[in-house]
């Protein structure tokens, strides 16, 4: 009798373990998809920023007759984003676009009429909001990756992760150039 009961309890425990392993597996799948989703959510914002640029250039063109070079740099960076092949290229093009936009907003300081234009104000605010949101979502992406990477290294999740080949994912890292200190020059020419 005891044998049968022990056998039954063993089967019950086995059932619990299987259900638990399924829960872990589903959780890991969910985390992996969450990483993909958070990456795509950054893309959504990058696309929105991309779509706002023609409007910005159109508004700026009227005022910045002598800054064609800066505007052309923005247009060029935008087309690089459009033509980028692969994740790495896309990332570099996005970073370049961010840099050229930063240059554009710095140049705008020389054009008070443009700065006062309501359309420009709206666009610059919108792009600035998008930049903030992109930064938030990059942070969210890194959180998702961190949770996933920790999970697949923890017991008991590591057993399921190794069995089903869940490998760690890279965090979003910024270019080394962006980590350098910013040099501020207060001498106006």
């Amino acid at each position, binding site marked *: *009798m005891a044998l*049968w*009961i022990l056998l*039954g*309890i063993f089967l*019950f425990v086995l059932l*619990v373990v299987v*259900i*638990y392993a399924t*829960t872990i597996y589903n*959780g890991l799948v*969910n*985390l992996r998809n*969450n990483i993909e*989703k*958070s990456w795509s*959510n950054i893309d*959504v*914002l990058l696309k929105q920023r991309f779509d706002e640029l023609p*409007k910005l250039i159109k508004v700026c063109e009227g005022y910045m007759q002598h800054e064609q070079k800066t505007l052309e740099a923005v247009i060029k960076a935008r087309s690089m984003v459009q033509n980028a092949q692969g994740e790495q290229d896309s990332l570099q093009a996005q970073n370049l676009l961010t840099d050229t936009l930063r240059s554009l907003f710095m140049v705008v300081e020389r054009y008070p009429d443009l700065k006062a234009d*309501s*359309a420009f*104000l*709206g*666009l610059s*605010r*919108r792009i600035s*909001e998008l930049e*903030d*949101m*992109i930064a*938030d*979502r990059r*942070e*969210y992406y890194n*959180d*998702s990756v961190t*949770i996933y990477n920790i*999970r697949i290294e923890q017991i008991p999740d590591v057993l399921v992760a190794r069995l089903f080949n869940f490998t760690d994912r890279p965090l979003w890292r910024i270019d080394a150039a962006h980590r350098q200190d910013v040099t501020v020059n207060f001498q106006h020419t």
Partner: protein
Amino acid sequence: MTSSKHPHLLIVESVAAGSRELDTLIAELAGQPGFDPYLARQRLIGRGPNLLAEGSKELLRPSANILVRRGWRCWVLPVEAPRLVPTRLRSLHLDDAGLTLFTAEKQIRIQRDSRLVAVLGDLSGSVIGKALKHLMAQNVYSGVDRARPIGDDELQQAILRARPVLDLYLLDEEGEPGDAVRLLPGRFDPRGLGESMSLSAARNLQVVLDQVRQIVEPRILSLDFGLAVLPGCQVEKAAEEIPWERPNLNSLSRFGWLLCRMQACGPHKQADTAETVRPQPPSLPLQPAAVQDLLGEIRGESPPKDPLPEHRSGLPQPPACPRTQGLSRPQWWSMGSALLGLGVFLLLVNPGPLRPVAGYALRTGLLQATLGAVCLWWGFHFLRLKRRVENTPTSKTRSLALGLVEVHGRARRKYALVSPMSQQPCVYYRLRRFRRDRNNRWKLSSSSDSGHVPFYLEDNTGRVLVDPARASVRPRSRQEGFSGQQILMLERSSPVDRDQKWIEEIIAEGRFLYILGHATENRAPRISLRERVVEALRELKTDPVAMQQYDLNGDGQICEQEWSAARKHVEEQLLHQSLRQESRPGTSRDRVVIVHPKHRSLPFIIAETASEAHLTRSYGLYSLPFFAVALFAVAWALLILVEYLGLN
């Protein structure tokens, strides 16, 4: 004469219900010294005169001026002990010209030209319970801002059925109280009422009251003793173990005295900026301790313990609760219990068809195994919930992506929601009423919540709208009270109905919340610029006057170049228009709302907690007993099954 530095009371005549004007008033008063916006709302809505603030006269004058300017009647009175206490009526005589009242010391004549203040009050406190019950029921079922206090006729009848006392104050020519007499039912000789006399003591009191009403016009009759919040006028609950009659009679004397002083001084006037010196009868020197006692009663009504959130006025009224198509949870429970009871009854009456089935399930361990399976399911449910909370990264409200999101932040009201019992500004409340059944167990009899009222969650990057409908809400603030017992609203009590209790759970404004839910678009999809341009050009074509401005050569025709210019102009106009709208603060808000996920397996949690770890730990702890019971039930089922199959 009182010094302007002497403590004063700002007393205001309250209104029956809240309104937008009231919110505006509270917002304006919020900056005044000695003013508490939370207590103020309670005091401004209700019956009779209520204490609004206390302090020196200079301190209270600006608030009083604001009240007067907004059309409220208010009084600024010095804190003082009553100088006149009513004496008991022994007998009376009613004639055509008036009413003569006889006390042990003198006789008082009431006639047509008398100026009178009458106070009809209930000494037992039961009327307060009735009024509170009335208000609570209205709050729950109609909303706090639509609740009306109990009416005069109903209140008078309730007082006369309880322990009524009638105090009559005769005012002299200057409006100061000269004589006062107290009518206790059954304690005076009613024969002077003549044919109107009755065997009922309460009825005789009512006759006197009616006669006074007929004789003296105009007169002041107050029924608000116990309902109005004034210092020193609280009513003790009628109980055997503590003396309550004498303290309540003293409270009634103070209440009557304050009413007389209000009549004598008159309402505050805005132009009254200088100290007005009124001749007053010599008064007993007021002991500092007495002043402190009175002020202590005021200060006893402590404000909320947590730091007060910023008071925000001008919030709209909460939306009306939509009528639910299905049954509420208590109704489901009642129906389920009724069906179960019917099943058990049928089994007892005619166990024939079901007895073998039940017996078989019990003998083979099927019932125990089912119990084990159910417990196992619940155990894993909480475990999955725990992992879901742990696995979801926290988003910022500014960059919230659509889908399942987790956000942390402080709760802020979108609507002027106030909890029904404790009257606190809150973003969510749940009120449940329990009744004691025959077996002395509490049974849920009704439930209501503010699940239909959205609120905001605010973090350091912005805020997001939350619709708490169908959410699993975990408030931490909980109030429990019996019917008739007054919890926070007023610091006094009345006979308590121990067979019925209320439990209120709230999430107060400003509390830190954890939310796991589904973020979705809050409005109709945006129309693209291209679509808007097409629509605008279509409208332009139908408007000949507008078309003329693009006819640059004046030939009455729009050529291709002119049409191109018109198109460009319209496009620019729309672009500027949309940019202006987007840059306007507030318009870009509320685009996203957190709601219950469409997929039922996904959770929607609103928890008042400062730490996510606390929440996950509690879910982990919830799952443990279920697993333990499941293991026990399975072991039991196995034991029975082995015996049943004869495998031993």
